[in-house]
């Protein structure tokens, strides 16, 4: 019975994630437009666009290999799996034991590798340049992520996102300097991974400066749909991750159905707030030069190390 409940919860979560991801992107775009003093596209615009891509012809460039079709699918599947693993509005789903951080990092790396290969597929210049940059960024981003993970594990004694959320929600941890550092580091990584300002510009259409967008230039139709949907899922995933780890309070439990509605509402509120904060941050900073990005991520990594240092010493002394 309990298993069934948790199964339902997991499926519901999956449905919610897939349904909300485009809306989240729409909300971010809308808020961004508002912050810039424009009316902006409607909240549902991403759905229209996905639908548009569905109806369009899918073209394959002549220079592409047979694998051209595989990369978008691979990227989508990896990202989707990762998005399903991260608990959004309740803990204790069926996927909880498998939601460990290393798996997540691996899935994200897999998705990134697939997009990069897709960008390289036709052999045109911008795709290759963007892939190179993406590798450079991810090198530092993943290192930072792993270091941050270290302090989470030290604090929560658990490697799964679910376990970390449960441990943090109980409040034994309190507010600590390490968590502040970890949050700062995680935010920097998240901004890089989702391709937002200051490392990349999602609204940019200058090929020279693009990173994530340039990788998808050669795709059209359903492939483009998949890739865009992947980007939306990735944004949701990162927001989920930050929201779940740092603000896990009053999350619902998968095995008690009565807490679900409140958890769902809370989740939507959390996402809404983050969707509002992201554009605010974006319009207040400038995009940095490509070669500053490793520095930016290096700072994130060092912050992660600092979080670890403070925790380690505190743990040794036993405050």
């Amino acid at each position, binding site marked *: 019975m309990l298993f069934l409940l948790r199964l339902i919860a997991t499926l519901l979560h999956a449905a919610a994630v897939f349904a909300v991801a485009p809306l989240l992107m729409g909300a971010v775009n809308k808020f961004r437009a508002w912050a810039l003093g424009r009316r902006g596209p409607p909240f549902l615009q991403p759905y229209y666009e996905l639908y548009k891509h569905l109806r369009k012809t899918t073209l394959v460039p002549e220079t592409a290999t047979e694998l051209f079709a595989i990369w978008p699918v691979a990227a989508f599947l990896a990202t989707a799996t990762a998005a399903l693993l991260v608990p959004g509005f309740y803990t204790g789903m069926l996927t909880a034991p498998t939601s460990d951080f290393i798996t997540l990092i691996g899935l994200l790396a897999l998705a990134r590798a697939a997009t990069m290969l897709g960008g390289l597929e036709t052999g045109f210049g911008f795709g290759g340049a963007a892939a190179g940059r993406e590798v450079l960024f991810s090198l530092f981003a993943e290192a930072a992520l792993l270091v941050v993970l270290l302090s989470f594990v030290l604090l929560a004694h658990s490697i799964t996102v679910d376990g970390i959320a449960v441990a943090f929600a109980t409040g*034994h941890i309190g507010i600590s300097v390490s968590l502040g550092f970890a949050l700062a580091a995680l935010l920097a990584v998240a901004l890089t991974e989702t391709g937002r300002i200051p490392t990349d510009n999602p609204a940019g259409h200058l090929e020279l400066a693009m990173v994530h967008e340039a990788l998808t230039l050669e795709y059209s139709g359903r492939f483009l749909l998949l890739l865009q949907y992947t980007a939306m899922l990735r944004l949701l995933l990162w927001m989920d991750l930050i929201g779940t780890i740092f603000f896990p309070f009053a999350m619902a439990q998968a095995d008690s159905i009565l807490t679900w509605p409140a958890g769902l509402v809370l989740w939507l509120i959390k996402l809404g707030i983050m969707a509002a904060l992201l554009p605010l941050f974006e319009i207040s900073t400038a995009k940095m030069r490509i070669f500053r990005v490793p520095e930016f991520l*290096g700072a994130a990594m060092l912050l992660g190390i600092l979080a670890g240092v403070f925790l380690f010493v505190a743990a040794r002394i036993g405050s």
Partner: protein
Amino acid sequence: MNLTFSLAHLMGGLILLCAFLLLSQRRLAAMITLYQVQALTLSAAAVWQGFAQHEVNLYLTGIITLALKGVLLPIALRQIVLRFNLTRAVESTMPMALSMMLGTGLIGIAVLVVLPSTMSAVSLTREDLAIALSVVLLGLLVMTARRSALAQIIGFLSTENGLVLAAIGMPGMPFVAEFSVALLVLLAFLVVGIFLLRIREHFDTLDITGIEDIERRGR
């Protein structure tokens, strides 16, 4: 873990974060903003400590910090940047990555040195002291890692913030220290202001590489 400790800890962490980010900043405007955030956090921390320790002096420290360092100094620094039309980007003496790694190392050293040696001290002060020492050392590192005079001053001011952070964490420390630190900032700034004006008369930039001339003549 009670709220007093947690909040003091968090604010100390924020101050340290600002000090660390100072290291990674190239632009003067960003450095000044970071300094301002640091000072504002510091004043909040002072008031919070005043509340926790029931010390009127600490409230006073918080207000002085807020007024002088949180508001007046940043305004004045921005004025200097504007009026002298200083180069907005600061040259550094070492690669950014190296200075940040050094900074991390310094924090590690500070934590390792302070925490074991303060085992018997009051718990409220222990981690605060480690953080304060880190801020002091990071400020000094900023001073050595930057070539521009104004950036060095900001590093120095950040060091001062670390000192005040240490002072407010000391149980029942007589007000002498805090007051003199506040005074010092004011005086230091007066002196520095005159310097800046005069250095401006003699060199066209606030770049102090000219000092090496003296060294060549002297040594």
